[in-house]
């Protein structure tokens, strides 16, 4: 089924690692004795699971940014919407175990003196419905937003700015108590997921494995898209949008498609994230979060998919380490990362590595810019490649 062309060399390695992690980490946590050097301690499980969710989020950003050239500064909104959809399911599972022991209403609604469940909470007690909404809510938002934006040909930084405004507007909205999403505090104090206690070791291991599988699945989906002809059209759009129109592709439809798929992946990442960290609140909508996601992609390598996921894990592991050891310095480090990566590592870790790897085996073909700004290929001796 999965051909070599679909995966590519790096893709195969990446997929193998993710699948190995999906199996080995939960096994090590559950089966190995606590003292063993290979044992993954309980507290690490949600942390590692969180990294995988971030990796999936980074993957979704890379799909639109790396391949279609859409720099989204609002993917955190899709992530958070997916998270809220899952959070709503988890809230309904609390049932009478809340502080106010109301069988239907979550605690914050009782606290606000609400008498009945608002209509948009209906159905969230059923997992299949909630799972559908995890994809549908961000997908719908992305579709509507993209439909307007791409049809009117908002591109480049303009698009980036309005995506940021979008997540900012949602941030403000979700802070409001009367929106019915728990306001400032968000949704938390979850008890069960599908009948299993969320805090239990087994549940956490399963959630971790699921996150890894979701990452693998997301990766395969993205690879399928970018290696298809549609993926080539996306790259064409990224590099020469109006040329693509003039050969007959309706650019807005292509962008809308990939944008919506990407939003749904981000929503899935958010949905897996929430039961592992145990809370979802409006701060997930903060524009700063979305921009941070972009830097994960840039660090790992824009347009490499596997690199983006790698970036999501590496940067967040770095964040955990920094905020534990040198909390004062984390923002300096993050800021410097933004600057240094854009200046010195435009292809990111994976992109640079691949270039070095392939460059080692092939005579270098360097690109120089001639006066017209047109890239002209020259071989390593400096002579123009002859035109026939």
């Amino acid at each position, binding site marked *: 089924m999965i051909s070599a062309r679909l995966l590519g060399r790096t893709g195969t390695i990446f997929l193998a690692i993710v699948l190995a992690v999906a199996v080995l980490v939960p096994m090590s946590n559950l089966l190995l004795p606590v003292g063993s050097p290979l044992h993954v301690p309980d507290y690490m499980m949600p942390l590692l699971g969180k990294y995988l969710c971030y990796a999936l989020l980074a993957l979704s950003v890379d799909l639109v940014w790396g391949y279609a050239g859409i720099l989204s500064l609002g993917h955190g909104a899709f992530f958070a919407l997916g998270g809220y959809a899952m959070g709503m399911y988890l809230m309904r599972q609390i049932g009478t175990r809340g502080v106010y022991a109301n069988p239907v209403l979550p605690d914050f609604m009782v606290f606000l003196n609400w008498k009945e469940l608002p209509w948009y909470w209906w159905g969230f007690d059923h997992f299949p419905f909630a799972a559908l909404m995890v994809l549908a809510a961000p997908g719908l938002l992305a579709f509507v937003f993209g439909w*307007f934006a791409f049809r009117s040909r908002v591109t480049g930084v303009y698009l980036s700015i309005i995506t940021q*405004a979008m997540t900012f507007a949602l941030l*403000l909205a979700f802070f*409001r108590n009367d929106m019915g999403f728990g306001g400032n505090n968000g949704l938390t104090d979850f008890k069960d997921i599908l009948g299993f206690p969320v805090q239990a070791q087994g549940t956490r291991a399963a959630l971790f494995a699921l996150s890894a599988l979701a990452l693998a699945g997301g990766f395969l989906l993205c690879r399928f898209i970018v290696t298809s002809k549609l993926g080539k059209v996306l790259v064409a759009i990224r590099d020469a949008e109006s040329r693509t129109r003039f050969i007959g592709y309706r650019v807005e439809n292509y962008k809308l498609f990939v944008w919506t798929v990407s939003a749904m992946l981000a929503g899935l990442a958010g949905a897996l994230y929430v039961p592992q960290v145990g809370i979802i609140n409006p701060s997930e909508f903060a524009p700063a979060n979305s*921009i941070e996601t972009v830097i994960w992609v840039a660090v790992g390598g824009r347009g490499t998919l596997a690199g983006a996921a790698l970036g999501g894990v590496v940067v967040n592991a770095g964040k955990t380490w920094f905020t534990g050891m040198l909390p004062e310095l984390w923002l300096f480090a993050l*800021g*410097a990362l933004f600057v240094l990566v854009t200046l010195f590592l435009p292809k990111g870790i994976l992109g640079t590595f691949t270039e070095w790897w392939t460059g080692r085996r092939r005579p270098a073909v360097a690109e120089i810019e001639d006066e017209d700004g047109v890239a002209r290929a020259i071989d390593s001796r400096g002579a123009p490649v002859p035109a026939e």
Partner: protein
Amino acid sequence: MVLRNFPAIAFALCLIVLGAGSARADAYTDALARFAADSYSETEAAIEGVAASGHPLAAEVVSALQAGRLLVRAADRAVFIRDPAGGLKDARTGEATTANAADLKAVRLNNRVRRAADAAMGQLTLRAPDPRRRIEAAAAVFKSRDAGALAAIESAIAAEQDPGVLRAFREARASIALAKPDASAADQVAAVEVLRAKGDRDALALLRQIPPSAPDEVRGLAQLAASSIESRLALLQRAQDVAYGVSLGSVLLLAAIGLAITFGVMGVINMAHGEMVMLGAYTTFMVQEVIRTRFPELFGASLFIALPLAFLVAGAVGVLIEHSVIRFLYGRPLETLLATWGISLILQQAVRSIFGAQNREVGTPAWMSGSVDLWGLTLTWNRIVIVLFATAVFVALLVALKHTSLGLQIRAVTQNRRMAGAMGIRTDWVDAMTFGLGSGVAGIAGVALSQIDNVSPNLGQGYIIDSFLVVVFGGVGNLWGTLVGAMSIGIANKLLEPVAGAVLGKILLLVAVILFIQKRPRGLFALKGRFVEA
């Protein structure tokens, strides 16, 4: 009931007016004694008596009563006034005296007594030499609607020269006339007219309260007058909202105008723009710190000292950023966006490390505090100053871009970078200067914003999205567009706020701007022509 005592008060007032004050002292002393009775009705009678006596101390006694500083000694029914500082005065003579505090008891008040005291104060001060006191007195009568004061008002009107006071008196008379069942229809019609001219909430309330017993003609007129006042008030409210909107628009303009230069001229998305504003605000804080400790007498001028310094600090940081980072990213707007975002994080954390995360106190000079009333609008001075300041900055930039050689070069680079370069303009130098200028202007904005916002490391964050929306909405590369954009967003925000609430209003506005950008992706005042696409 107060009404029962109309004749007495009217009579007493006539006496005052006629200047027949021979029995004054006795009437005053007698009335004073009734305060000691410790009964509300007696106290009320005492107030009326004191007011009617025309005694020079009458006003002081009643105002002391109102403030709960009128004390009685039950043993000998003596009455004392305690001044706010705590000293005691004999109410009969006005001379300072002493008494055992344990024997003294404050005259008790209830609402009826308070009303009577207010009405009495109104009458007592109708002839005060200070016109402001007279207006206050008229206002007291206007509120109390005490028909007993009518005669006093009438005579005061006859004697009054000052047109402002006269108007207040007439309004007081109108207020009484409308409440008085036996007033003539003609008087009431005239009263309605006076109230319509007064045109504020108080007048509206009176017109709404016309008793059903009043003649139909009067009631009809009152209805008309009320609705005309209502629409006027609604208009005034809109005007007030617009004034707030202009003020918010000026803030947005200040925050965004530097961005209009860097983004508009150079196409550089500077996400650290908000931090330039923050640096300006912290410069103001530093200047004030130095002034507080070394030259406290200069405090009033602190903002003027801070302005050039903020421009230099933010401008220098801007040039540094341009030279160390942005220069290498020209033509790659998305990367520039990310790199400058990184710089903004670094600047925020740097300021947090140096000054701490908490808000810093920036003082407001005396000349910027307080407010003015303008045709019923309340405007605070600091907002007015910011509006004027934003205008000044805008005009200065406009002039600078039009009439200086740097401005000419900047415009040349905006319109056609390659051609400008070919003509010998050092585009890299122009870029650095332009970026410095934009950043410096942001620093100046920080000085102004330190007056109305919390000076904290997050100050800039709050403005960055708004600023971008303003610039994009107005049209990139056009200062006028930025002005119109800032004012439209500011005013729309303030007009939406009362309707939709602050947060929802803001959300609606964001959505509206997003939709607008989709409709006109290049803003209100887009540059047009051949080179736009390049």
